[in-house]
């Protein structure tokens, strides 16, 4: 049999056999996926482990403490016009992050259509949503530290571990959002200037970029939203 010079000569198998076939030696494992996207997925997998370890340590201290846990529904309540709404700010933050994920998905789509203007605007809207999310988090932290007296080593409402796990988990997530906002602005600028069409080399990696970068950026951003889904469920709603 003559050696084939591309993997398109033979029809790629599907189903379970495709896993064995794709991982076999002497060929590209992740077909139809640019290397940058595969690497982003592997990075996100490692980040999944980090966040799960944080959330698991939170679960462990919460389940093992004999001191009552502060009720998140009351701690994070907002009073508007004399009425107390439980978790209102957190709910707003959730909807904002979901909307930013929506605009990000649209940006990826318009990027592959070579619609530079729409892509850049959608990326900037996503960044604005992300920045407002971080802003609300700053407000929440300030309220908790200044008004409620929550510290990493203790708080007036109950178990001391509440502060340490809260600041660690939301702080790490907020850092991810902030880094995402910075990179969204960088990618939006590149799209706006048409650097993915003119094959301009990037300032950091000196590599030629293309619209795959928008999708890779999107993977990171959706992951940030994904982590919030879990934080919202197990930290705020528990």
């Amino acid at each position, binding site marked *: 049999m003559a050696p084939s010079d591309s993997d398109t000569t033979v029809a790629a198998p599907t189903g379970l056999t495709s896993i064995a076939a794709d991982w076999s030696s002497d060929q590209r494992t992740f077909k139809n996926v*640019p290397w940058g996207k595969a690497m982003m997925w592997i990075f996100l997998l490692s980040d999944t482990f980090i966040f799960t370890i944080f959330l698991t340590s939170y679960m*462990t201290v919460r389940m*093992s403490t*004999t001191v009552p846990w502060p009720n998140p529904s009351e701690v994070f309540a907002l009073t508007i016009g004399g009425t107390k709404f439980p978790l209102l700010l957190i709910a707003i933050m959730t909807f904002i992050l979901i909307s930013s994920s929506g605009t990000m998905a649209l940006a990826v789509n318009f990027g592959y259509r070579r619609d530079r203007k729409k892509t850049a605007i959608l990326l900037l809207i996503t960044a604005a949503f992300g920045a407002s999310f971080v802003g609300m988090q700053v407000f929440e932290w300030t309220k908790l530290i200044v008004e409620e007296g929550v510290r990493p080593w203790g708080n007036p409402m109950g178990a001391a571990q509440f502060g340490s796990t809260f600041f660690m988990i939301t702080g790490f997530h907020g850092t991810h959002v902030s880094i995402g906002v910075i990179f969204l602005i960088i990618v939006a600028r590149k799209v706006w200037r048409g650097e993915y069409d003119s094959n301009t080399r990037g300032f950091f990696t000196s590599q030629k970029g293309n*619209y795959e970068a928008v999708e890779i950026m999107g993977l990171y951003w959706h992951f940030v939203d*994904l982590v919030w889904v879990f934080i*919202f469920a197990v930290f705020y709603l528990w």
Partner: protein
Amino acid sequence: MEKVEGQQHPLGVYFKIWGWLFVLSALSYLVDFFGFESYLRWTLILIFMALKAGLIIAVFMHMRWERLALSYAILVPPILLGVLIWIMAIESDYTFATRGIFFGGAP
């Protein structure tokens, strides 16, 4: 132009998922708002959480259109985390019990 290997799908699918994520988030907020307690609360919260996570990964992150070699490489390792959570849940129950015995704080 350079060959780009990307995901291209109709816009409608994103709007549909966006809407579902809003509905599911609203439902999980309502669980807290109406103050459901105990097993009903955990079940509802975890179901809504799993559905939201699934929709984001499958559609927004395009996992349902990827080849299985990539999907399995990314989605199978987190099963280990389930084992970690299970072990630590057992361990914290034990810690809680011992604290109750030695410090007398447990109900």
